[in-house]
């Protein structure tokens, strides 16, 4: 009976947003053993092509061992593991270059690549992404043209069934995919993705475009762009949405993979729960102002100067799952709401059309189911109510007239 209950529980909850932060000692002890064996095995392997050494890199950037261990314990917490895992996480970070990564770009702005590269004074997350064994990335590699294609072939061949494929950008499906082609043979983005994902160990979609279509898929979506999850079937897929995806979460996923050999627990939208299990709104520093009903009414008013809640200027924190309210961006420097601008729900499906407007949902124009006229829900509802009112009025007037006739004996 007990295991049947457990089975039913699993069936119905595995895909929900619920985050289980404490799975009991037995679970973690077993996991620790698995991770330890894995790390030991990885240590004996020689690194792949990337021969940069993390210790040197950290030293060059003036980051002490102590800072590194502090970072490791923070990542352990972020991955929702007990603190006893900290040394393992630190080891896994040092072994990041054992995981070969191929990174492709489709309909995108390279913003996620930029997020990693352009941080001023790279911090540990960014440095780690430097030392992963990045076998192929159009934006940052020196090879180009046929040479680049050759390099891709080599990487796919050498690390067959072992590499992680990072995908940045949406896939245009219109015109048989001809909206986006790559290379001398004009391979469509769709074919490109299918070919390279075929022998990937797992696929990681980074950024909102690769996960849910993002900006390229925004209405009217002329290229019929979609996210990776809409076209790729039968492969382990991890979505790391947000615009741009937070480098900390990319590192988290890679470390989790190195540590356990598995992909982290995902929610119904295939987002790792460690990063997307919580709402912005529930960890927001302005939440007290929300509950107090103190809102910024317009940009730059007294409320804005006093850090009031941004709900009325369109903050979508109540509907958005992401950890930027906890870990922030650029190694904890700040995040959107911290600088006084509402959340636009960048980690949610269809965010450009449904979340990214500077007013609450109730005041925003939404499409009628017919796809036609755009009205706010309240305009639409008031319209319905008025129509009903007119109908009632007509019926009442007719009834009155008919009633009078009856009394005067005409009917």
């Amino acid at each position, binding site marked *: 009976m007990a295991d049947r209950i457990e089975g039913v529980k699993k069936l*119905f*909850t595995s*895909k*929900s*947003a*619920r*985050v*289980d*932060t404490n799975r009991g000692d037995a679970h973690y002890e077993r996991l620790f053993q698995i991770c330890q064996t894995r790390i030991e095995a990885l240590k004996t392997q020689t690194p792949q092509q990337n021969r940069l050494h993390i210790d040197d890199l950290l030293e060059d950037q003036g980051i002490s061992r102590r800072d590194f261990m502090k970072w490791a314990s923070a990542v352990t917490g972020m991955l929702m593991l007990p603190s006893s895992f900290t040394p393992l996480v630190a080891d896994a970070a040092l072994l990041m270059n054992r995981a070969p990564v191929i990174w492709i770009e489709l309909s995108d702005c390279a913003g996620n690549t930029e997020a990693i590269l352009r941080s001023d004074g790279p911090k540990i997350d960014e440095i780690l992404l430097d030392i992963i064994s990045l076998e192929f990335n159009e934006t940052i590699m020196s090879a180009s043209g046929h040479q680049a294609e050759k390099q891709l072939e080599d990487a796919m061949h050498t690390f067959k069934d072992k590499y992680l494929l990072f995908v940045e950008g949406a896939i245009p499906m219109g015109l048989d995919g001809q909206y986006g082609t790559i290379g001398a043979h004009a391979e469509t983005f769709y074919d490109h993705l299918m070919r390279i994902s075929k022998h990937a160990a797992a696929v990681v979609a980074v950024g909102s475009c690769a996960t*849910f279509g993002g900006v390229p898929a925004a209405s009217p*979506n002329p290229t019929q762009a979609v996210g990776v*999850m*809409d076209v790729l079937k039968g492969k382990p897929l991890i979505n790391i949405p947000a615009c741009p995806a937070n480098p900390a979460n990319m590192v988290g996923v890679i470390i989790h993979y190195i540590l356990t050999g598995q992909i982290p627990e995902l929610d*119904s939208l295939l987002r790792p729960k460690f990063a997307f299990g*919580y*709402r912005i709104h*529930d960890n927001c520093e302005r939440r007290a102002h*929300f*509950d*107090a*009903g*103190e*809102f910024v*009414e317009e940009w730059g008013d007294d*409320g804005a100067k006093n850090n009031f809640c941004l*709900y*009325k200027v369109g903050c979508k924190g109540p*509907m958005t*799952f992401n950890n930027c309210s906890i870990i922030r961006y650029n190694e904890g420097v700040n995040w959107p709401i911290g600088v006084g601008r509402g959340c636009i729900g960048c980690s*949610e*499906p*269809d965010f450009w*059309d*449904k*979340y990214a407007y500077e007013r*609450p*949902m*109730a*005041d925003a124009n*939404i*499409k*009628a189911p*017919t*796809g036609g006229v755009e009205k706010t*829900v*309240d305009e639409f*509802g*008031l319209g*319905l*109510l008025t129509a*009903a*009112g007119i109908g*009632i009025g007509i*019926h*009442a007037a*007719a*009834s009155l007239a*008919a*009633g009078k006739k009856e009394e005067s004996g005409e*009917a």
Partner: protein
Amino acid sequence: MKPEYKQVKRMTTFMRINHWVVAICMVAAVITGLYIGHPYYQTYIADPAVDKYVMAWNRWIHFMVAIIFDVSSIVIAYLYFFSRFEKPYKKLIPTAANLKEFFEVILNLVTLNRRKKFDSTHSDSFNTVFFLVFHLMLVWMLLTGLQLYVHGLASGLSSIGNWWPWMLHLVTDWTVPVSGWLIGTTAPTASIMDVRVSHHLTMWLILVWVAFHIYYQVWRTIYWKEGDISIVVGGSKFVKDDKA
């Protein structure tokens, strides 16, 4: 001679209390729900901290009302089958008699009471279907509302036990794709925003329902001359003796 009238009992005290509780809750849910959707009055910035929790109170009232709705819906669902009066489910089965009555009641309404060929002593099948529509919309509000609510319990913990968020996920997660479908989203993946739009829109549908309901009950009272409105006040209505 004036026709003799006979009193027929139609609603127990309990049913009447339930009715007015529902009506008051609905008004409260609309007022607080609209505030949650778009805070339409401002907190005085200089107010003392003690009465600061304007949004929190609105949400509190909204949820309390929702819980009362929950309980009342369960009771009503029970009454559908076990009521001491006409058990409503009997009027919902599309038998020939029920279908005929359903259209006769509509004809009565559109012919402005010129044609009345059904027995108005008992609850009629038109009204019963109409009430069912309300209860279905209310259930939808409950499910979508609870889906919006459960995300505040992301930790999976709650003060009344872990079963609560677990159960809410179990019974309401499916409203996400269904809401996306209902509001006709073009995106391949639905999200909680669709649930929110659907929750807000359904409120308007309920308001339209209420407008017609009140009008129709008053209209019946005036034109049928059988005191229908007192069903929900005193519990009974009056019908001419020859009928009852």
